[in-house]
């Protein structure tokens, strides 16, 4: 069991080791869904939700099942995540069809988001307990949302500026991300 305090876990996950900008997890939605602030925000919220559920189920798996069969870790995690996303999708569809329509394709795509599996694995590697894992998940989700929303706001304003023809598209997005990541390096000394 790791001895890290809840605050330092939370703060580290939000800014210092931001999942997207420092650990490169969850880049697909970062590139794909960051064109509009509104969708970025919604994607971020969906991610926080799934991350929290994943953290809880990873903790259950680790504590009660995987101790006898550690080699099944990767396989069982990915199955649990896939079914979790499916259940969340069905629940949202049943109780809030509007939200379901707004999230659209992004919801099932969360399964192949490396941030989710990454969270489960980091949590296991660092030996976090239940509360620590929960804090880590919420922090990581907030960090993802922060990065997504920042990126989306920058991209919205870049759209109206005069960018050379060659630079339009992913190249430019990556360079913006690099600059953002440099800005987040400023937090590195805090913890």
């Amino acid at each position, binding site marked *: 069991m790791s001895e890290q305090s809840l605050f330092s876990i939370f703060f580290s996950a939000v800014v210092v080791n931001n999942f997207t*900008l*420092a*650990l*490169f*997890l*969850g*880049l*697909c939605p970062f*590139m794909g869904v960051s064109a509009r602030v509104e969708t970025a925000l919604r994607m971020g919220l969906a991610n926080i939700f799934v991350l929290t559920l994943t953290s809880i189920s990873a903790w259950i798996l680790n504590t009660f099942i995987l101790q006898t069969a550690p*080699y*099944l*870790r*990767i*396989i069982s995690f*990915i*199955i649990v995540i*896939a079914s979790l996303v499916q259940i969340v999708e069905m629940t949202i569809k049943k109780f809030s069809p509007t939200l379901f329509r707004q999230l659209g394709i992004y919801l099932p795509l969360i399964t*192949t*988001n*490396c941030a*989710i*599996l*990454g969270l489960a*694995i*980091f949590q296991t*590697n660092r030996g976090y307990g239940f509360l620590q894992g929960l804090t880590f998940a919420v922090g990581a989700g907030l960090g993802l949302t922060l990065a997504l929303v920042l990126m989306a706001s920058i991209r919205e304003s870049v759209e109206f500026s005069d960018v050379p*023809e*060659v*630079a339009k*598209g*992913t*190249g*430019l*997005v*990556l*360079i913006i*991300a*690099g*600059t953002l*990541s*440099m800005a987040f*390096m400023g937090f590195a000394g805090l913890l």
Partner: protein
Amino acid sequence: MRKTTRSEDLVRGIWKENPVLVQMLGLCPALAVTNSVKNALAMSAATFFVICCSSVLVSSCKRFIPNEVRISAYILVIATFVTLADMLLQAYAPVQHKELGAFIALIVVNCMILGRQEAFSAKNTVFRSLLDAMGTGVGFTIALVMMGGFREILGTGSFLDHPLFGPHFEPWVIFVLPAGGFLTLGFILLAMGYIEQRRRDRADKTAEAEASS
């Protein structure tokens, strides 16, 4: 779909449909582990192993996989081989295994591998799927080593741990840090876009010259 020849299956993934540089798949490992050439090579080797084995298995079992659960079946197959790769690396290259850490396990969610299963192995013969997987794997390796080389040379002034410059070289540390990963890939894509645009312009000019003459 247009029928392709065997050599096309192999070559396509290497440059024209390079998974990282053209299709933008598998970006997480491409950015996260390329701070040195050695890590890039270890990551590529593991990914190459996983994609080849999964393609062979998926294409040989495609008749037994029901259409409704095919994605889950592919993910299971991939996860099995990733576990294998994880154990092999831990046994034979413990240093690299430690350096790569959680990113080995994250090969499971590399969209490039799942994409090849869905787009190619599920419809083609075992041999052609293997060729396709090898091509994609080599393309991935090229992209990773290119980025790893760029970042290691600029960031530490060495290549595969051999110092390249004299003692007065000031390493450009930003390139081995996360920000450098984004910048490197960004610059590579800009350069590729520039080359592509010039080629298009030249083709347009030739076409115009032919039309006017």
